[in-house]
């Protein structure tokens, strides 16, 4: 072993690494039922809690308040009111649309919870909380929440 080798630099190194992932997501029996109704029948369904009678959209298996299984499906018109919105003006690779675009929280008639989704066919400067909305479905649907293209103002 040599002890007379030249000095090695202390210069800081930054290592560039890319993490590749490809995670699968199960929507489960409840999610599948909800998404299939949208895909096959353009219907938005909610789940009603047998305990507190609240209707949940999007659905989940258990009522968050009562922790009981919800099994009663309720069909909704899809129409609803806007409870909040925002216009996204920055870009990230995971965004399904080119900014600027708008998200809204839509409280559907007959539901006790809101659904967060895109707003479309609306002037981004003229969105108002409380405005009436209805869903616009995609022509080709794959069984995802994106089968609803966006919510547009309705009369």
């Amino acid at each position: 072993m040599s002890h007379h080798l030249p000095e090695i630099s202390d210069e800081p190194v930054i290592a560039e690494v890319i993490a590749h992932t490809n995670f699968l997501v199960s929507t489960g029996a409840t999610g599948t039922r909800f998404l299939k109704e949208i895909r096959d029948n353009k219907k938005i369904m909610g789940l009603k809690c047998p305990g507190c009678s609240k209707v949940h959209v999007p659905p989940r298996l258990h009522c968050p308040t009562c922790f009981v299984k919800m099994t009663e499906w309720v069909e909704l018109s899809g129409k609803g009111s806007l409870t909040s919105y925002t216009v996204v003006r920055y870009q990230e690779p995971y965004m399904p649309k080119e900014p600027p675009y708008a998200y809204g929280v839509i409280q559907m008639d007959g539901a006790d919870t809101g659904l967060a989704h895109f707003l479309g066919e609306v002037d981004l400067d003229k969105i108002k909380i409380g405005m009436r909305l209805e869903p616009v479905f995609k022509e080709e649907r794959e069984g995802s929440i994106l089968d609803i293209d966006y919510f547009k103002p309705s009369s």
Partner: protein
Amino acid sequence: MSTDQKQEQEFIQFRYPRQVPYQHSLGYQSKFANGLKQGRILATKCPVCGRCTIPPRIVCPFHHVKQTEWVDQGQRGRLVSAFKINFPMFDPRTRELQSWETPLVAVELEGGASMDGWCSELDTSKLKTGMLLEAVWRPEEERQGRGDDILHWKPVEE
């Protein structure tokens, strides 16, 4: 169709393919990376117990004193373990599944530190614990200051 496949089709599943970039500052480890580029293996040495470690450490885990001394570990070492990976695994560099021909070895270096590496001897039955190995480096222009700058470890006669 098996029941399993039927079940898979019944429920909607989808994927989120992503590539998320990270930039890691090597900080105190930088000297180690810079050394590899020049074909040298450096390790930190604990001033209390004299233990040399690779990858380099900021403190000795046993004595909790800051490691400031760097020691050249030489080019030779003794084999600790060796086996082939007989199944396809992700190549951390290319992100692709690939099979691995060369045995993966752990080497205890002359300077006392231990490190991972590949072995040039493909027949694992010829590899014995304690045998002497020597580092074979990539050409200097191909080195990136990473662990695989050492192409493989080659058994040498004693």
